[in-house]
């Protein structure tokens, strides 16, 4: 099998092309050292492996995920480099292509979005472009998979390929490149490419060359080259000069192979933008969109299906299982583990799968349609007030699905300080696991206002996050100013296939977690409720679970929910927030009450339930989130900090809400 690396600018259809060329992710792992996802798939013709790399504009990294792409090219020499080029933005895209041509591996260009280019009156002659680049050029439409078969065939034709045509630079620079290239040992990598990237200021390459050449010499060489080049031009720095040289070559290439018939820009995006990024309506429209999301998730779609699933699980499924176990003559203990432990624990979480998939579907829609960049723009002023920038809102939105990928998405943020704050604050975004707790409680206490109550919790999370961001950026994490530049891609209606796939990629983690982590957790929790200081099969009031719950119940008294069940659920909820639901399911199933919903009604009042939900929202990031915070910040101090501040804020806010609620006459 050959290895094929997939590279391209962001938003050029890289994901769509990956999906069209492979059946599924063969494995999703992490790149060594960083928690950036490494996604690899097998090509449909089974002739090679396709490695999906983070989208980049150039090979000089500015942010952490861009660094992954540069590192990959430094450490591995893929057999083929597959470069996705957006034909409708060909000029900008070719900058990356030319850098990849200098890299010296066989290059295949997938000329994507040819339909969009045609619509805009841009005509490109692929054969001529191929001749100019010294690379294969295959026009495709990744969205409809047009041209993908030809592309696969081209990739498989390894042996007969030549290296791409390299860019020749003007005199002093070309000589400097040759001088440096001659000094770079052959085993360090492709010499010319390394030399060029070094002169362009590629941080990853600078580090690499420092290992094989004396740092002082490298610095002096860089300075003398820059001085020699700048003496002859008006450029500000070497980077700008190299870029300009590439622009010149691109202009030449395009004059040979590209024709612009007319330039009618798409007006659909413009019209839509007039509304969704409207001066005053932008933020209200975003809130309305979120409100509809919750309406869809709860009232219109998710809950009705969940209810049916719940009825199925607690009715026919557990009855059938019970009968089966009795017929098999299983011991009481086994029956209890399965029915009161596993079915109550795992089942309690599984019934929320419909809501969670609905939410993931909508998040995928926001990501794929182009709305995400608009949300970032609309939110920028607000975020700037909090010491962040609009782009930091994107990890937070992803955090609504699950905090773990949200925190990982923070690696697209360029400034280290903003990235740290985003990592620390994303756990305050209400994730889908917490949704299962709210679903349970609003179903019992707030029947007629489900969507608005849940929306209030989400908004509360955001408000707390922004307030703390302001606080932290004035105290703990001062530093560079914030920056904000985002590309606003044209709106595109996402394809069902891509949506389904990315929803599934996100949602399967939840299902898998229910099958492994929550399964194990449920058995453990059940054991804690089945055993006590007096031995096995004790009444729940004498169980270890009760002892644990009693330990912290007094602390929770001021918040309104000082019962031991809540205490026990909160402790186990650190494993994963859904476990709160499992724990309650198990506790109340074991205590033989009629049903979870009725039992809750007797232990909580609506105000106490709300205070409990606020506490659940804020109290500590779950185990997996703490793990990823540790990895991404690479600091035990910040990890402890993220747990500590969350507990304090949760405690204070819950007290405040409960007490004020009482004063206002709620109960």
């Amino acid at each position: 099998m050959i290895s094929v690396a997939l590279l391209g600018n962001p938003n050029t259809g890289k994901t769509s092309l990956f999906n069209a060329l492979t059946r599924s992710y063969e494995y999703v792992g992490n790149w060594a050292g960083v928690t950036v996802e490494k996604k690899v798939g097998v090509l449909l013709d089974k002739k090679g492996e396709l490695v999906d790399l983070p989208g980049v504009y150039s090979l000089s990294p500015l942010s952490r995920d861009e660094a992954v792409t540069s590192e990959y090219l430094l450490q591995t020499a893929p057999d083929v480099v597959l470069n996705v080029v957006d034909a409708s933005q060909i000029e900008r895209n070719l900058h990356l292509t030319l850098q990849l041509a200098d890299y010296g591996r066989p290059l295949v260009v997938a000329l994507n979005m040819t339909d969009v280019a045609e619509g805009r009156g841009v005509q490109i002659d692929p054969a001529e472009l191929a001749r100019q680049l010294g690379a294969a050029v295959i026009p495709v439409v990744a969205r409809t998979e047009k041209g993908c078969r030809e592309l696969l065939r081209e990739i498989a034709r390894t042996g007969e390929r030549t290296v791409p045509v390299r860019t020749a630079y003007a005199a002093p620079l070309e000589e400097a490149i040759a001088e440096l290239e001659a000094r770079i040992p052959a085993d360090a990598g492709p010499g010319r490419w390394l030399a060029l990237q070094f002169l362009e200021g590629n941080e990853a390459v600078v580090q690499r060359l420092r290992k094989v050449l004396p740092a002082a010499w490298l610095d002096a060489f860089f300075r003398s080259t820059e001085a020699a080049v700048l003496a002859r031009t008006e450029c500000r720095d070497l980077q700008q000069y190299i870029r300009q040289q590439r622009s010149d070559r691109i202009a030449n290439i395009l004059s040979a192979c590209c024709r612009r018939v007319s330039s009618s820009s798409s007006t659909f995006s413009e019209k839509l933008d007039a509304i969704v990024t409207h001066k005053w309506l932008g933020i209200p429209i975003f809130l309305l969109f979120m409100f509809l999301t919750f309406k869809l998730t709860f009232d219109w779609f998710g809950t009705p299906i969940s209810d049916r699933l719940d009825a199925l699980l607690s009715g026919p499924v557990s009855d059938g299982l019970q009968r089966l176990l009795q017929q098999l003559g299983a011991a009481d203990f086994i029956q209890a583990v399965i029915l009161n432990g596993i079915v109550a624990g795992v089942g309690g979480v599984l019934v929320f799968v419909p809501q969670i998939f609905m939410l993931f579907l909508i998040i995928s829609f926001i990501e794929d349609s182009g709305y995400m960049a608009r949300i970032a723009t609309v939110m920028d002023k607000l975020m700037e007030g909090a010491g962040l920038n609009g782009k930091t809102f994107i990890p937070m939105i992803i955090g609504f699905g699950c905090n773990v990928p949200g925190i990982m998405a923070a690696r697209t943020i360029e400034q280290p300080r903003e990235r740290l704050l985003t990592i620390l604050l994303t756990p305050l975004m209400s994730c889908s696991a917490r949704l299962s707790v709210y679903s349970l409680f609003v179903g019992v206490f707030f029947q007629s206002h489900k969507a608005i109550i849940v929306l209030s919790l989400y908004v509360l999370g955001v408000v707390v996050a922004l307030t703390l961001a302001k606080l932290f950026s004035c105290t703990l994490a001062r530093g560079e100013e914030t920056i904000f530049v985002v590309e606003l891609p044209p709106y595109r209606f996402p394809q069902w296939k891509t949506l389904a796939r990315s929803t599934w990629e996100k949602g399967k983690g939840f299902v898998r977690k229910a099958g492994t982590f929550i399964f194990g957790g449920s058995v453990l929790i059940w054991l804690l409720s089945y055993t006590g200081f007096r031995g096995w099969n004790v009444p729940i009031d004498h169980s270890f679970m009760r002892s644990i719950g009693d330990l912290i119940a007094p602390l929770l008294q001021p918040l309104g929910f000082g019962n031991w069940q809540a205490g026990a659920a909160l402790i186990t909820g650190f494993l994963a927030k859904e476990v709160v639901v499992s724990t309650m399911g198990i506790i109340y199933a074991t205590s033989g009450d009629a049903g979870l919903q009725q039992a809750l009604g007797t232990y909580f009042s609506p105000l106490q339930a709300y205070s409990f939900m606020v506490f659940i929202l804020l109290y500590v990031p779950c185990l997996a989130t703490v793990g990823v915070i540790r990895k991404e910040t690479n600091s035990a101090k910040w990890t402890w900090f993220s747990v500590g501040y969350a507990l304090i804020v949760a405690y204070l806010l819950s007290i405040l809400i409960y007490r004020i609620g009482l004063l206002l006459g709620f109960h």
Partner: protein
Amino acid sequence: MMPLTQLQRGSRGKVTDMASVSFMVRRRLSDLGVTEGSIVSVRKMLPFGGPCTIESNGQWIAIRRKEAQAVRVLAL
């Protein structure tokens, strides 16, 4: 020459000087194809000194008002 923000809405200008734009923003803009010599236009400004949306070469970019002020353009 004037700051990009003073360009009339919808009319086009040629970027002449970006030296006082902050380094990171300049890098990102050049990644997106906006450098000295590019033709740009302003599409939208959000209220309260919020970001402004510019268009260059059929592509839309949002940047902060402050950075847009630092970009000098020549009206065409």
